[in-house]
């Protein structure tokens, strides 16, 4: 008797289910950043808006990366429904705080996924996740730097101007 199940399916069910959950998390992130971009845009924080539009696109990219991985492994990837995301914020600072909070929870979720892959002995998935672990270091770094800008400049009109000026140039240098 042939080993059809192994030749047609690579991933364990638990991994598939967990990656599908991650697809939903990335999609929700993308949607949350889009809402933030809109909030910034209408208030004239053009560069902050640009920053969040770009973040939103990146999250969508992450979603697709996971989606393609499942499809490539012959597993069924689910296009997720997206829950309601926040559209109202009390201040620009709170938008960035929310963004940082979101990145922290995404990092935790990716790490959980790595632990699951390890537990299941799924070396391919663990290797695939390496990129995301690295990516999250970067995403968290940028989000944290943004919040720090508010601490440095305070929450005044002038500070917001400074932030508008600097927000697009924050980059992670890879620890160099």
């Amino acid at each position: 008797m042939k080993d059809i199940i192994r030749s047609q399916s690579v991933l364990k069910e638990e991994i598939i289910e967990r990656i599908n959950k991650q697809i939903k998390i990335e999609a929700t992130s993308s949607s949350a950043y889009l809402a933030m971009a809109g909030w910034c845009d209408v208030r004239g924080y053009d560069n902050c808006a640009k920053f969040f539009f770009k973040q939103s696109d990146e999250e969508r990219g992450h979603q697709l990366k996971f989606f393609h991985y499942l499809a490539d492994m012959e597993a069924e990837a689910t296009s997720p429904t997206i829950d309601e995301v926040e559209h109202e914020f009390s201040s620009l600072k709170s938008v960035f705080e929310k963004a940082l909070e979101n990145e922290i929870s995404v990092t935790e979720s990716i790490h959980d996924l790595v632990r699951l892959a390890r537990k299941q002995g799924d070396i391919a998935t663990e290797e695939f996740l390496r990129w995301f672990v690295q990516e999250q270091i970067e995403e968290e770094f940028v989000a944290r730097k943004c919040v720090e800008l508010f601490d440095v400049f305070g929450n005044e009109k002038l500070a917001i101007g400074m932030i508008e000026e600097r927000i697009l140039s924050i980059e992670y240098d890879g620890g160099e």
Partner: protein
Amino acid sequence: MSENLAESHTISSREVLFQTSNASITQCDAQGKYILSFNQDQIEFRACELISFRRKIQKIDLTKLLASDTPDIEIVSMPHCDRLFVFTIQEILELKDLFAGTFAMLELNSLIHKEIIRKGALIKSN
């Protein structure tokens, strides 16, 4: 004559993985498919379709089904063959059994392939 030969070839490439009183799942090596026979019905599955169907059956919460005021049935869709099935509680119980047994057999078969057949082939080729 040639038709008979073709048929016997197909049958010999089929192996029943697990059987309950009204249902069975068969693996067809020639087509690389699984066949679920249930109440005179025969439905073919690819591996990933079989896995996702099993997940649907396993997710059905029987205590919830029994406790609700609605009729004790569950509607399960099989998008890969564009069909809807209505299962009674007995049928769901049987399907849960059937899948548990089938996947135990499949795991065992994969293990044999991994540890004996594939490893053996590697050793020979070295």
